[in-house]
């Protein structure tokens, strides 16, 4: 057992914040992603183009650049614009908010594609049967399409979750005391960088391993009532 010199708790504190940021961003990404997917499928032309531009940009720009653009760029843009108009304004974004906001915006774009593909994978007969039974479009979506979409979407969403967890490490760059940042602090104070960064890696691996198990269980649950061909 390596000697953490009393910094072990700092790592665990960071782990809790990492999980918090990851869960909050994932919930945001799920909500925004589902909305964007519905927009991409059903919105009028202008809306579709707008969402297409959003997903195209987000998927082509590194997460770090987007994070820095939001955390440093937005406040300076507002300040410089205000200064030109003759106002003296000082503004800064909370790293917690900037981190969750950035991750939500990025991973909603990926979740959007997953949801869209899942919707398109549904057999149209399901929708037609629901309409034939007299269900309106909202109830059809909620009671018939969404539960079946989940089965197709879960593998992709699990992937999004695991990438998102790893991406939370980037927020350490804007000094949010999550796992990576706290490992960095401990590494500097104890002069044992390898020990602490390796311990942080193991904690990330633990999250990944548990997520993989959870994902397998969720997929079994979402596929309940369906039979699969066995070979």
């Amino acid at each position, binding site marked *: 057992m390596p000697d953490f010199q009393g910094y072990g708790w700092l790592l665990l504190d960071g782990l809790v914040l990492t999980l918090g940021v990851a869960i909050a961003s994932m919930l945001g990404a799920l909500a925004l992603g589902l909305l964007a997917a519905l927009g991409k499928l059903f919105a009028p032309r202008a809306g579709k183009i707008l969402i297409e531009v959003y997903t195209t940009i987000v998927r082509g720009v590194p997460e770090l650049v987007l994070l820095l653009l939001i955390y440093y*760029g937005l406040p*300076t843009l507002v300040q410089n614009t205000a200064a030109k108009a003759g106002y003296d304004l000082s503004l800064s974004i909370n790293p917690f908010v900037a981190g969750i906001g950035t991750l939500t915006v990025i991973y909603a774009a990926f979740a959007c594609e997953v949801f869209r593909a899942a919707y398109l994978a549904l057999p149209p007969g399901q929708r037609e049967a629901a309409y034939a039974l007299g269900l309106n479009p909202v109830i059809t979506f909620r009671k018939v399409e969404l539960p079946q979409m989940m089965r197709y979407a879960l593998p992709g969403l699990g992937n999004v979750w695991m990438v998102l967890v*790893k991406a939370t*490490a980037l927020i350490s760059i804007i000094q949010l005391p999550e796992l990576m940042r706290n490992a960095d602090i401990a590494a500097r104070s104890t002069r044992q*960088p390898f020990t602490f960064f390796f311990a942080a*890696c193991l904690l990330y691996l633990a999250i990944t391993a548990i997520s993989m198990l959870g994902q397998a269980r969720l997929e079994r649950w979402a596929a309940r009532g369906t039979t699969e061909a066995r070979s």
Partner: protein
Amino acid sequence: MDFILANLPRFLEGAWMTIQLALFSCSCGLLMALPIALARLSRKRLLSSAATGYVFFFRGTPLLAQIFLIYYGSGQFRHELGAFGLWTFFRDPWFCALLSLTLNTAAYTSEILRGAIQAIPKGEIEAAKALGLNRYLLLRLVILPRAIRIGWPAYTNEVVYQIQATSLVSIITIMDITGVARTVGARDFTFFEAFGLAALLYLILVYGFIFVAGRIEKRLGAHLIRPAAVNKPKLAGNIR
């Protein structure tokens, strides 16, 4: 506009650095990926579990943690590394950046290669064996050409993420696009313009590469029918 004109040369230097990092790490990663993929598919337990462990570690931890582990972490073994004459390498941020990017992409690429090899119809391999090809020829003439065609769309995605992943090395003082943007932004307090221009350059690199890769994909043989499972649309839900 003034901002772009004044800083474009520096940003282009940064872009060249980004291209070099992506190019080197992807080619070295590809070379490493083949033995790793073959080891994972090997029947020898020790070999396959070593490869599985490698892939699990590098895919399960953030790239940033890997960069820190190699760049800062190596300092803890300064004397040991010095004794082997390796310290000069690990002291150099460029070397550490390249090493961590390569090890990282090798893990992802080996998974793409493994999936592609497994997607080759069994009959083709059996036919090659029936023709009397030995293991080396089987690999060179049958398995690899097929695996490259099957895995190419997924590999294109991997390169796209690798181009974006190189932005992390700006944290260990490398002057790539992001590194230049951070310096320029901090000097003139023009963060929005600097990171905006950086984002634009990454967009050009990424979508430029996707265009070229699409052309290569056609060359590789669009007339061949690919197994449906691997033939995913570019950059869809399939992210790493």
